[in-house]
């Protein structure tokens, strides 16, 4: 039984009894994106020189994950109008009517403030400032401004998704360095090829909601060329850890193989016919791009683990 005081200023339309479940609020955090953020932030933390208490490291990752989730909730609040039209996003909690926009906005802002403050108090204010900037960049610069304004939206906006390993690095070192910038570049340069592959086979949906994705604005041929250019740049960035000396030659060989795979799938997209409705090469590139990013950061982590083991054995003898 709920008591509602109708003597106040509330109108009937303002009274709404929610049927939103905890799972709906979890969905607002974009858990799949959050998992990638957690993984790359963890990699940045492990690869950084220096030490961090494991529990403090866990809290740092938690804060970065919640901050990423908060920016996802803010993104869903602002994009509810276009989410409702696109098939891929129509079942999200706001367009589906399970959570109101105001609830999502409050949820996102609260989690943003909490994640930044806790990271600042527990780990350091440089990393916390970086997290706050990342949330701002994704929610305001990308979502509110670039996404609906320019076909270069995901190129510039992709920076928000590329910052987590730098934040993880900053949690350990208290700053940034060339190595953390390289980790940033791998994700930053990977994002356009990844998203434009998706945009190719979702052209109709993006066109329907007026989001100026590159294939809709500049056409498919231009998009294909840009995908290839960014795939090559990503492959080069992928081997930079070896070239700069903070990863082994073994990692470099794995990164080169993965990079060549990324370029090869991009070349297959070039030969895709414009009348091809299934766009299988674009779908395969999109799938491989996910494997690529996961594999490249896994390889960096494995490389660091092997070096640590070799170092431990070396000391033992």
């Amino acid at each position: 039984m709920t008591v509602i005081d109708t003597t106040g200023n509330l109108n009937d339309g303002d009274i709404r009894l929610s049927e939103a479940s905890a799972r709906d609020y979890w969905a607002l955090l974009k858990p799949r994106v959050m998992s990638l953020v957690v993984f790359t932030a963890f990699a940045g933390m492990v690869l950084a020189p220096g030490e961090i208490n494991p529990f403090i490291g866990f809290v740092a990752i938690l804060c970065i994950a919640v901050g990423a989730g908060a920016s996802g909730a803010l993104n869903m609040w602002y994009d509810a109008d276009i989410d409702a039209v696109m098939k891929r996003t129509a079942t999200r909690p706001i367009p589906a009517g399970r959570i109101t926009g105001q609830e999502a906005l409050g949820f996102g802002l609260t989690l943003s403030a909490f994640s930044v403050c806790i990271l600042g108090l527990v780990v350091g204010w440089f990393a916390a400032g970086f997290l706050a900037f990342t949330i701002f960049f994704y929610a305001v610069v990308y979502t509110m401004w670039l996404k609906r304004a320019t076909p270069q939206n995901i190129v510039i906006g992709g920076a928000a998704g590329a910052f987590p390993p730098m934040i993880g690095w900053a949690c350990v070192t208290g700053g940034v360095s060339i190595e953390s910038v390289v980790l940033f570049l791998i994700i930053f340069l990977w994002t356009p090829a990844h998203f434009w592959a998706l945009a190719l086979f979702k052209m109709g949906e993006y066109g329907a909601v007026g989001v100026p994705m590159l294939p809709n604005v500049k056409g498919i041929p231009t998009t294909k060329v840009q995908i290839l250019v960014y795939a090559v740049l990503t492959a080069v960035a992928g081997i930079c850890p070896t070239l700069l000396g903070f990863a082994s030659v073994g990692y470099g060989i794995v990164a080169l193989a993965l990079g060549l795979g990324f370029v090869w799938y991009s070349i297959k997209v070039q030969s895709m016919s414009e009348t091809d409705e299934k766009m299988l090469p674009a779908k395969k590139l999109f799938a491989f791009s996910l494997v690529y990013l996961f594999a490249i950061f896994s390889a960096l982590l494995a490389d660091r683990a092997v070096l640590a083991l070799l170092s431990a054995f070396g000391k033992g003898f």
Partner: protein
Amino acid sequence: MDLITLTPAQKRARRGRNIALGLVLFGLVALFYVVTLVKFSNGLTH
């Protein structure tokens, strides 16, 4: 003053949200407790 009876679905959703919120609050208490211990022990060793 009007009285509104919640539907079973609304009751179920509210209960789920309350449990989730309780778990989050409990987790935060545990988290701050352990962070305090870690920070204090670091302060003592350095």
